[in-house]
Structures are given as structure tokens and as C-alpha cells.
């Protein structure tokens, strides 16, 4: 089961030489991420709070699958909306990769990861251009986005893996991606670029040692589950979500009002658009509410479990 951890240098060199991805822009379809790399990326993303963080991933390829073995943070300063690897990050990347080779870690850098705190896993305009550049000169290269804030709310890791299409390429069919709420102030950035990249399927793997260590930590897991309060931890995020929802409702209402004044017979296309927009808002609203009710249920269960027993 640990054979995935073996690095076949010859096979990787041959793959690099053949460059199969050049014939098919959708060549890579799957990503396998090791438990270690996932933990390191999530912990790093959460350490950034509301500030975006950035790092690199090391690994290899196996057919149409990119395998991420490890990840490491980059010394870059993020802001709410921008993460640009400064010059010192490039120097750091080169040093880190060379030092790895010297100590026998043969995996190359196979991608970069960064965080979108609270606004979902997708590629913004800047992300698309960064990824295109990397895919031009550093193939095979993957872009991973993590949302640490939604990870806490949803109780599972919010993560997406993407690859961009070559400049000017029109994908045959609309890339199907799981629905996610995009904040109003980012919808434009999302909408403009969402056809320039596609999402890969993500699976995880762990070594026998990882399994042993995670078993040892088992009691930490159930203790954390019982003693955490999603309602408490994410108040700011939920308030931001409701604020965003109100904005979207207002925008939809204005458009509706506008349309009513304009013409009596709304073209069916237009009607469909309004509905889909309202449908999305309703969906967002029920998603937020369900998460809140889940949080409340856990509080009530904890109250019954730990506060109702009296001496």
C-alpha cells in the first residue's frame, strides 16, 4: 500500500520527455493528495486567517493523475485579495527544490496552492494568469485552492484542484463544477474566467504510518467534535454570508422592479434568468440556514449530554 511513496525517476523522466499533455488540454483529470500534504496545506491556510496564503506542492505524475506527496509554505505576504509570490519567494523556491534533491527528496514541484478565505474554491483572473504562465514553463503544474473558513463551517475540507486551458482555447462542453456560493463582490471576477479552466477530481491517500498515527490521535478527533461550536467559531463568516445574501436579494429585486417598469411581457429567456438568479439566492439561503441549524443541533445535544445531569 505504500508503493505510491516510491519515486521512479526513469518513468518520470520518460513522462517529461513524452509530454502527453500537449496533445490534450484536458489530459490531466485526477489528483491524488497525500494526507500529509493535505494537513499541511489546511493548517497553513488556517494560519493565514482572513489573509490569503500561498505555497508549493511536490509530487509526481502517473498517467492522467497528478500525485501530490508534500507541500511547503512560501514566504509571501498575502492581502485580502492578492497573493503574488514576491521575488524572494522565487529564490526560496529554487533553494528549497535544490536542497530537497541534495537530501534525496526527488519529487519535483508539481503545483501551487493558495487560499480563498471565505469565498470558495475557484480561480480568479490573477490565479488564471499565474497558472497559465506556470503551465507554459513548468508542466506538469496544478493549481489548488483551499477555503479555510468554509472548511470549519462545513466540517470537511473545502478544496479545489484546477488546470487552465491554453490561451484562446474554447472547451467543447461547459465544465460541470459543483455549485458553490460566490460572494457578490467576486462574482464578476469568477464569471469572466470560469471557462478558462477546469476542475480535476480529488482523492486522498495515506501511508501505513499515517494510518497508525491518525488512529493514535483518534481520541483527539471525537473530543474535538464534541467540544467544538461551529456557531461560535464562524460568526464573522456567517454574518458576511448573510450580508452578501441581502445584497444579492436587493440586486435581484431592483432588476425585477426594473423589468416590470420596462415591458409587460418579459421574454421567456429573461424570465428564466430571473428565476435562476432567485433560485441561486434561495439555495444560498437554505445552505447557510442548514449549516446554522446543524450548529444549533450540536449545541442542544451538548447541552443535553453535559448540562442536564445534576448531582
Amino acid at each position, binding site marked *: 500500500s505504500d508503493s505510491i511513496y516510491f519515486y521512479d525517476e526513469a518513468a518520470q523522466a520518460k513522462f517529461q520527455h513524452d509530454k502527453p499533455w500537449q496533445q490534450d488540454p484536458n489530459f490531466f483529470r485526477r489528483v491524488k493528495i497525500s494526507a500529509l500534504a493535505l494537513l499541511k496545506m489546511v493548517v497553513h491556510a488556517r494560519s493565514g486567517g482572513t489573509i490569503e496564503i500561498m505555497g508549493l506542492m511536490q509530487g509526481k505524475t502517473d498517467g492522467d493523475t497528478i500525485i501530490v506527496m508534500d507541500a511547503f509554505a512560501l514566504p509571501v505576504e498575502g492581502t485580502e485579495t492578492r497573493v503574488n509570490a514576491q521575488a524572494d519567494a522565487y529564490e526560496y523556491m529554487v533553494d528549497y527544490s535544490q536542497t530537497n534533491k541534495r537530501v534525496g527528496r526527488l519529487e519535483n514541484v508539481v503545483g501551487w496552492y493558495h487560499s480563498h478565505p471565505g469565498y470558495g474554491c475557484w480561480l480568479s483572473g490573477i490565479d488564471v494568469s499565474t497558472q497559465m504562465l506556470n503551465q507554459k514553463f513548468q508542466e506538469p503544474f496544478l493549481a489548488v485552492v483551499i477555503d479555510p473558513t468554509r472548511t470549519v463551517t462545513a466540517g470537511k475540507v473545502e478544496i479545489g484542484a484546477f488546470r487552465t486551458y491554453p490561451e484562446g482555447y474554447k472547451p467543447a462542453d461547459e465544465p460541470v463544477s459543483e455549485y458553490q456560493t460566490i460572494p457578490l463582490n467576486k462574482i464578476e471576477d469568477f464569471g469572466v474566467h470560469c471557462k478558462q479552466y477546469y476542475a480535476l477530481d480529488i482523492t486522498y491517500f495515506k501511508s501505513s504510518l499515517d494510518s497508525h498515527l491518525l488512529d493514535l490521535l483518534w*481520541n483527539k478527533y*471525537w*473530543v474535538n467534535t464534541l*467540544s*467544538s*461550536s461551529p456557531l*461560535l467559531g464562524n460568526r464573522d463568516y456567517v454574518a458576511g454570508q448573510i450580508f452578501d445574501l441581502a445584497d444579492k436579494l436587493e440586486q435581484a429585486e431592483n432588476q425585477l422592479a426594473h423589468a416590470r417598469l420596462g415591458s409587460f411581457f418579459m421574454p421567456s429567456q429573461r424570465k428564466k434568468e430571473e428565476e435562476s438568479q432567485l433560485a441561486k439566492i434561495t439555495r444560498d439561503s437554505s445552505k447557510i440556514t442548514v449549516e446554522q441549524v446543524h450548529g444549533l443541533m450540536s449545541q442542544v445535544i451538548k447541552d443535553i449530554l*453535559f448540562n442536564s445531569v445534576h448531582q
Partner: protein
Amino acid sequence: EDQLHAHLICCLENFVNSSPSLWLLPLAYGRKGSRVKVLAFREKLAELYESERQWSKAAQMLSGIDLDSGIRIDDAKKLAKCVKIATLYLEDDDSVNAEAFVNKASFLVGNSQHEAISLQYKVCYARILDLKRKFLEAALRYYDISQIEKRHISDEVVDEDALEQTLSAAVTCTILAAAGPQRSRVLATLYKDERCTKLKIYPILQKVYLERILRKPEIDAFAEGLKPHQKAFLPDNFTVLDRAMIEHNLLSASKLYTNISFEELGALLGIAPQKAEKIASRMIYEDRMRGSIDQVEAVIHFEDDTEELQQWDQQIVGLCQALNDILESMGRKGI
């Protein structure tokens, strides 16, 4: 200079007479000594005093060298001299005189290329802070020194024991520092430094970091390793150690109890209730502990700025851990 000259010759002769072995001393210095010769005399005499372990005398001898004017001495030598004099004064725990020369050295150390001298300067500075009972600042500097990665500086070998002693001094000073958020941060840094687990002082570091109440035997054992100035009496007739321990235990009690009468608090801390009230009120005033005092009832109410709901989660963590421990020990007993 001539009078001084004559005085030096006379001192030398006394030395030579008092310790014949010093005949070896090259009496090449004639009455016609010059400034440079005076410098050489002083250095030689200081060496002799040092070999006799008369630290302050050696320091006084060197401090008579006029570093500021006259003889052309470059900054590196001046810095070395100042650090040497401060080190000698510190051997006799004389922080006042030592500080004068450390302050002089502080103007020169920035441009120094000599790492060994810079390191000695840092050690002097930390020890002066320690002697002046600025324990938290001293602890941070001791800890900084203990983290040296190089084992060879200039042509000298960095002694592992010395580094361990410096780390131990950092722990001691942190424990003696005034209880409060800053001290807690330094305690956390030290507690997470795995080198500390090997120190003799580690058990008490662990109890202090985990905010557990320290009992008298543990305090006495810790006191054995303290320097005289760390056991000195303060104006209120408590020693530095007493004050640090009482404040620590008071802070620990504030984590354990929601409120407590001063009668019981005094018994817990081993001091009079009035004293306990006085120390508690000062810590609350200095914002090192959160709470309020009801003087009519003679009760202190501790406050915890953690939100109730978060405290609830912390209680649940404790409950679950306790349950898990019971299950594990039942498993071990085969029940």
C-alpha cells in the same frame, strides 16, 4: 602619569615581594615608562589580580586605562576592554560598575566584527538585567544567547554546558518575573523548546507553565539553585522568590476558582489574608489578573474573559479527556 607611574612600580614591587613566584615578572619596565607602558602595566596587574580571583581589583585596574583620549586604541580594542571590565565586575555581582562599561560598549558593539566579544557583551547585558531584577528582559536575552547555532566563534569553542546554563538562567528568570500575559508567552516559548526537558529545572517550568499551584517543597528545591540577588529581600520583607511564587499561585488559583475568601486564599498561599488581598489588588490594578474584590465580604471574584460558551467547550474537552483516560485505564486493566 609620573606619580601613577611611581605608584605602579611600588605596587609591582609589593607584588613581587609578596609572591616570589612573580620574579618572573619581566621588570623591563623602567621609570621611564610611557602611556603605552602604563597601559601594559595595568593590563599585567589586572591579569595578576584576576589570577588571584580579585575580580573587582582587576576591573578597577583596567578601568583606570583612559580609553577616551590619549592613547590611540581602535574601537575593537576599546570594546574588548569595556566588555572585559564589565565581565570582571560581574564576577563580584557588581552590576552598577559593570553597567557603566556595558553602556560604553553599547556604542561600539554595533560595528564590531568580533563575534566572541559581541557574545560576551550580550552575556554581560543579560546578567546586568538579571542583577537589576528585570527578570523578563534578562530571560529573553538569556534565551536569545542560548539559541546560538555556531559552536565555533572566532577561534573559541562555544561550551555546551555554558549554553545549557544560559537556557537554565532564562527559565529561572522567567519564573521569577512578575506573573502576567508577557511572562506566560515566554513560558510557552521555553516549555515548547525541547532542550528544556533535559534541564534539572524542567519539572517546575512545567508546573509554572501549566499554571498549577506550586507547593512549598517544590519552591524550596527551586530556591536552592538561585543566586544571592534572586533571594534578596524586597522592601515589603518578602524575597523576590516569595513574591514571584505568591503571584504565580494566585494566578493559578484564579484559574481554579470562581471566587474565594481571603481567609482561604491566605491559607492556600501560605500568607496572611491581608497580604493576599494586597497582592491580589495590585495584580488586578496592574491588569495582570482579572477580577474584583468585595472588601465587605472579604472575597475576591475572579473573572475570565473567555466567553461562557467557549468555557463550556473547554469544560467538555476536560470531561471527554477524563472519560477517555478512564476507558484507557479500564482497557489496560482488562476490564
